[in-house]
């Protein structure tokens, strides 16, 4: 396999499916810049003219024009190619970067984040193929902010945002559980450019809205460090202050192991706190969109926050059907109530957790603040104890079977 250039340019090419198109000419007459033409066989879109404005998509009666294939910018499908088709070609696989090319600072951050696993993790065998390191600091992808929604109440102590980045025509394939890197502009207190900040994506692989090439992030504005000293997080404040239309430099994607299984009947146990819910949202939404396919498998969620008003996506979570996802909230600062942490909820559901720990089709994901790790692993140990299982023997097996993934910060 030939190694790709370290910062190859990828783009999404707008294509019309000739098997579905009814040649009604609506797209050609709607396009404001004349990017669409036709001959006696096919209607085709000129890659060099199309700017991805999507004006042609809503009026197309068949949806034939709603296709975007990842291509190398230097080698898109030509008009002659498209005119000759009887069907769309299968989406081409992009060359993948070798893992050694992942930047040093990303590798360092990843090591810290995954230390809690106590060993190397690998992706589940049925996980989709991840693309890694397509964009670097020298040649980042440029995304446009399409949305910046505050998830927490205006008077809540935490400012957590749901930020949607639109990649336009740039191909940025990213899976649930992967991260992307943001380069905050400007210099740090040492006069050097800020180092990259990594954020786990909150959208499933087809984005917030399929065929729109966007990705969401769950960002909490950092105003204090781990010891409680006031500090302005460079990455989080940069992102939380973005306005719709602003451009953002994005690198990555990263992460080849914290991935979800794709085979029918696979279950997910998701344990998170605060913005660690981002990959869980991505995975849950992926499953929700596929619900009608009846692929089976369960979802079990343990989600901790200080109070409900600061729990990201609390409203949407409450709307999910109970037979789709088993949700267990843990509020540590609910007024008038005892402090509850995710590990308490895990212990309270010991039977269910034990059953899923022993199910080889169940995959476990942990994401949130570093402080949650010890409590969660202890809870697993206690659940195992109560059910006659040996956690110290089980944990390496979980890792070997790609069933345990931990990423904390």
């Amino acid at each position: 396999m030939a190694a790709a250039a370290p910062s190859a340019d990828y783009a999404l090419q707008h294509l019309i499916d000739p098997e579905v198109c009814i040649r009604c000419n609506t797209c050609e007459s709607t396009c404001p810049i004349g990017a669409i033409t036709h001959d006696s066989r096919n209607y085709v879109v000129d890659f060099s003219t199309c700017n991805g404005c999507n004006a042609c998509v809503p009026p197309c009666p068949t949806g034939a024009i709603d296709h975007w294939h990842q291509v190398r910018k230097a080698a898109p499908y030509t008009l002659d190619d498209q005119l000759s088709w009887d069907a769309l070609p299968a989406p081409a696989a992009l060359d993948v970067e070798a893992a050694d090319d992942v930047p040093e600072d990303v590798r360092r951050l990843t090591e810290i984040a995954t230390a809690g696993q106590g060993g190397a993790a690998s992706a589940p065998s049925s996980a989709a193929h991840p693309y890694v390191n397509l964009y670097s600091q020298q040649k980042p992808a440029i995304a446009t902010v399409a949305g910046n929604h505050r998830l927490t109440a205006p008077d809540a102590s935490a400012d957590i945002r749901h930020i949607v980045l639109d990649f336009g025509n740039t191909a940025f394939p990213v899976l649930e559980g992967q991260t992307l890197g943001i380069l905050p502009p400007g210099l740090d207190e040492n006069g050097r450019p800020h180092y990259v900040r990594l954020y786990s994506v909150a959208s499933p692989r087809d984005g917030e809205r399929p065929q729109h090439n966007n990705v969401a992030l769950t960002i909490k504005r950092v105003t204090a460090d781990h010891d409680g000293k006031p500090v302005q997080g460079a990455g989080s404040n940069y992102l939380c202050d973005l306005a719709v239309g602003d451009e953002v430099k994005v690198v990555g994607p990263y992460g080849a192991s914290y991935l979800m299984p794709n085979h029918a009947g696979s279950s997910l146990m998701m344990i998170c706190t605060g913005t660690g819910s981002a990959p869980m949202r991505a995975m849950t939404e992926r499953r929700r969109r596929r619900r009608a396919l009846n692929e089976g498998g369960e979802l079990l969620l343990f989600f901790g926050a200080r109070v409900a008003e600061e729990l990201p996506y609390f409203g949407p979570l409450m709307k999910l059907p109970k037979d789709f996802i088993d949700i267990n909230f843990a509020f540590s600062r609910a007024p008038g109530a005892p402090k509850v942490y995710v590990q308490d909820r895990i212990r309270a559901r010991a039977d269910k957790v034990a059953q899923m720990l022993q199910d080889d089709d169940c995959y476990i994901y942990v994401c949130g603040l570093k402080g949650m790790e010890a409590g969660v692993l202890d809870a697993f140990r206690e659940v195992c104890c109560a059910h006659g299982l040996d956690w110290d023997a089980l944990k390496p097996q979980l890792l070997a079977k790609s069933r345990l993934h931990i990423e904390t910060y």
Partner: protein
Amino acid sequence: MEPTINYSEKIPNNVNLADDRALQRALERWQPEFRDWWRDMGPDGSANYDVYLRTAVSVEPQGWAQFDYVRMPDYRWGIFLNPVPAGATIGFGEHKGQPVWQDVPGEHRANLRRIIVTQGDTEPASVEQQRHLGLTCPSLYDLRNLFQVNVEEGRHLWAMVYLLHRYFGRDGREEADALLTRRSGDADNPRILGAFNEKTPDWLSLFMFTYFTDRDGKFQLAALAESGFEPLARTTKFMLTEEAHHMFVGESGVSRVIQRTCDVMKEHRTDDSSQVRAQGAIDLETIQRYLNFHYSVTIDLFGADQSSNAATFYTAGLKGRFDESKRNDDHVLKGRSYPVQSVIDGAFAERDVPMLNALNEVLRDDFIRDSIGGVGRWNKVIEKAGVPFRLSVPHKAFHRKIGTLSQVRVSPDGRVVSDAAWNTSVDQWLPSAGDRAFVASLMGRVVEPGRFAGWIAPPAVGVNRQPVNFEYVRFN
């Protein structure tokens, strides 16, 4: 003129209706009559259904499709014109290059009114023809498509009525009222055009109708979209985008019937039509006969092959040719000729006639070229299934009732035949009573989400990116 449609008004519109109180009042008086017509002649029994329908929130592409459940009697029909192109000039005829008209040129008033009334009459007509089909829908997906077509035809009626009220005074208002009193197939008060008095007894007829006859609509609208009378051009341009959806319903509907038939043929290793029928599918020979019928009935809609009216409308700048601006000529056509088929001494001959007089034929030929494209795509489905059969459109002179070609009997493959020969063979060429009875026998109501009748395959994708088994219609 704002592109956004104001849905808070009684009659949603982007023509500043509120600034013309007399017009607004006149249309608001017509509105309840329209609703009464929908109640009486709209889709049978559907008043309480919640249907997942598309509405436009603006005439811009991004505002084109807003999907939601709505009860059809509550559907917000309105008046939508395409945006004003800056500095538009008349593209053809004796006024070529001059600015477009915002009012009707007096000498052409009566003619233009007739064109608009004829076009407008087809809209409620097709709703009337199709009103019982919901009772035999092959799926919820198809039922929704039928209702979408029906409400859009209702909107097309609104488009024509707006022009009649706004530009044709009392005559226009009277014609607008008359549009609601004629009835498809009625002996005393029929619709104006022949094709729109035929019955649409089954879903194969519906798909053939929306594929072929709505395509006549496409070409008529496209010719009117060139008009120097700008309000007409902008109205018909917007209607063309809706028409594209109707043709999709037809093309994909027939394609899915063919797909199912081919699947049955492969599964049972047969090309025998009676065996195909025994399995509950429609044999390809019957599909070909339906095609022959709807194709021939539709090409009659283009009018007489030689017509001085057509010449007048073109020269006056009222009705252009399809894709007028893309044609490579002087757009005045005084010296140009066009080959027209006729029958001389029992044989076909082509004669050159002045193109101006043959503009109906020009449009008919454009239509024929376009509709052959879809037939080719249907044949790809058959070819992919490994079945050697191919569908084809019949000869232009087959089964005609309008124009010089109606004077002879012609087989689908273009042979002039005697009356006796025609009578012997007609059941191989056009749907027989037996054919129609067989297709009718397959029509049963299927309304479980995701289920499809045994004579039609499911579509590849759902509507508005919903799954195929989405609950497209809710019965209450």
